[in-house]
């Protein structure tokens, strides 16, 4: 499994975390390339549907980053994000998806270094968990008439 390259989708709030991720770039912090960001204005915009969709359609991990609680550009948009987080994680576990495949991290605009570390740690975690391959495995766990006849 050592050559497994996880595919991670990151939803970053524009004001803190996307800016922090940009700062990681400006400061030339190196992190691994397995993560592709999607910019939203606030982590509160991140709909849990997107997270499930990402897992179903091939993501091995989903990272959501927002401003630290109290620092939200929109006052408390991230409070809504953190309110959804624990229950979504618990539900993922019920579906057999390791909750660590979905992480919520606070990254401020000043924390480029932290963003790089968060990303690398996330990649390590997901790499250790192995590929999710949801669609393939779902297809494999779905019986059809042909299976029944054979």
């Amino acid at each position, binding site marked *: 499994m050592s050559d497994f390259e996880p*595919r991670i*989708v990151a939803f970053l709030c*524009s*004001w*803190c975390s*996307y*800016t922090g*991720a*940009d700062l*990681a*770039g*400006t400061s*030339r*912090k*190196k*992190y*691994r*390339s397995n993560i*592709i*960001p*999607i*910019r*939203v*204005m*606030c982590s*509160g*915009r*991140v*709909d849990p*549907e*997107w997270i499930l*969709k*990402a897992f179903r*359609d*091939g*993501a091995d991990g989903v990272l959501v980053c927002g*401003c*630290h609680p*109290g*620092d939200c*550009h*929109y*006052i*408390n*948009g991230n409070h*809504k994000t953190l309110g959804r987080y624990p229950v979504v994680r618990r539900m993922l576990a019920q579906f057999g998806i390791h909750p660590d495949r979905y992480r919520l991290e606070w990254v*401020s*605009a*000043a*924390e480029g270094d932290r963003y*790089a570390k968060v990303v690398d740690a996330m990649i390590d975690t997901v790499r250790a968990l192995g590929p999710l391959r949801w669609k393939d495995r779902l297809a494999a766990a779905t019986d059809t008439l042909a299976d029944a006849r054979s």
Partner: protein
Amino acid sequence: MPRIGVFVCHCGSNIGSVVHVPEVVQFASGLPGVVHAAEHKYMCSDPGQEMIRQAIREHGLERVVVASCSPLMHEATFRKTCEEAGLNGFLFQMANIREQVSWVTEDKARATKKAMAVVQAAVHRVVGHVPLQVGTVPVTPATLVIGGGVAGIEAALQVASSGTRVHLVEREPSIGGHMARFDKTFPTLDCAACILTPKMVQANTHPMITVHAWSEVVEVSGFVGSFKVRIHHKATYVDHQKCTGCGACLQKCPQRKIPSEFDYGMMNRRAIYIPFAQAVPNKPIIDREHCQWFQAGKCRICEKVCEAKAIDYDQDPAGWTEEVEVGNIIVASGMKVMQPTDMKHLGYGRLPDVYTGIEFERLCHASGPTEGHIVCKTGGVVKAGGRPPKAIALVHCIGSRDQQHHAYCSRVCCMYALKYAHLVKEHVPGCEVYDFYIDMRCFGKGYEEFYNRLLREDVRFVRGKVAEVTDAALYPGEDGRMVVRVEDTLVGAVRRIPVDMVVLCSALEPAEGAKALAQTLHMGCSSDGFYLERHPKLAPVSTASAGIFVAGCCQGPKDIPDSVAQGAAAAAQALAMIMKGQVEVEPTTAHVIDDLCSGCQICIPLCPYEAIHRDEARRKAYVEPALCKGCGTCVGACPSGALQQWGFDDTQILAELEGILAAR
């Protein structure tokens, strides 16, 4: 499928040396909908932009993707490029392959692969883009300045000098801030009061400036161009319209022993008081907690002696609130000096004659507790006539450059320590001055020269971080004194240096209530709690919140010249907006799809701006575009997808997600 053009930038070698751009261009040209793909050395340059404009015209492009730097950098640039070629700027999407690809990825092949995924995501997303119109709102020609320190005063004066209305709000009874407490200023050693007092008076008497002292901003609503600000005026119990500032009441008040906030408790004030002689406004207030009339129901002496009949015990103790409307806001709320009480090894609060830098400032000040004489305490009390110290320790970096406290440098301590060294040498003949430093940081104009001057003034500079200030004497000469234990890193030995007074140059921290104010203003703080500027180099006094500017120490520790410069810079930005008369607002607001909304009202309490309300007749939610700031939190929460956000529609984000997951 709309006709899409993709433009990939090399950014000199910034992208091109890591990401194999031609490969990305080739990949992009094979994506569905892409009818044209091209590269350029510098896409943001005039020729680069011209290339895009031409391609839009020649290929009839209906959507544009530019893969280059961060959208936070050049989204506006390329939107404009599109507009110039007749394409709505929102039919454009930016793929960030610099900050989040080439600069952060070591391996070139991986970087190229990631760049392709990012481009693919943008191409998928842009298909679903719809034209949007940037709106404009008029700007109310008035500015709110929060904080009446030197930065705020400067900002207020500059804005007002154009004939624009300024509301200057100060929570203390007087404007002046920390600088009003200073004796001398480094490196010129000019008298702080002599240069500040005229500015304070000028601000107070300026016809376009309303000074709201003893007041706080409690609520800010609205948005850039027209903020509605609620200013809470604390009760003064003195009618400042009638008060002539004669001072008779101050003399007669029988409550004499109230520790003065202005002098950090080292002097006393009365229950009716002005904080210091040059205070502006120079009108007293009554401290209800300590006033005999309020506490014991007798006295009313101040009322008797007031010829102007200005004393008003019947003022509402809750104070009163007024609302003003302004077009923009300058935050100059300053800092506070760290109290080193939890650094017990340094003896602050435990041993006598250990002071913070700002307390020592008052000790040097002619109107301070010792009338400007640098003397030890007498019977535990700071007062004139005490014994002069034979040796003083100036200890740098208390809480600054210290992982246990603040990682940052407080920027002013080296210089004010040098100033103190000079003042001690000047005021206390024969007194030894030990200056314990880690590094001397004398970066400003004339600062290094000042340091050189002090090197010749017989100050003992010891390079080392002080381990302990103790009263445990061990050797002769230590009895009854304090001993500074330090590793002298230049000598390479641990030293015990007996002194009689210790000045802890403690860190500058975000002001009390800085966080709450940030929340009131909906602006961000960096991890150390100072307000976050929009760009550390190129937008140092703007913030992420349109129409809100920062100046002075609330943005980070700085000295007087820098604070004044920022105050003036913020004023220039505020004025530019007011002179133009209008500002643009992003159209990426939330909106309700009427047919899908059931009026479940889950969204309504989620909006911090109260932009959503329920249309009772139609039993549906309605988003007021002028109030919506476009966070999309309500959209994320809407359980039926009836709320959507322009520019961040579910379909657009999901297309972007599909683009990412389709890659490889």
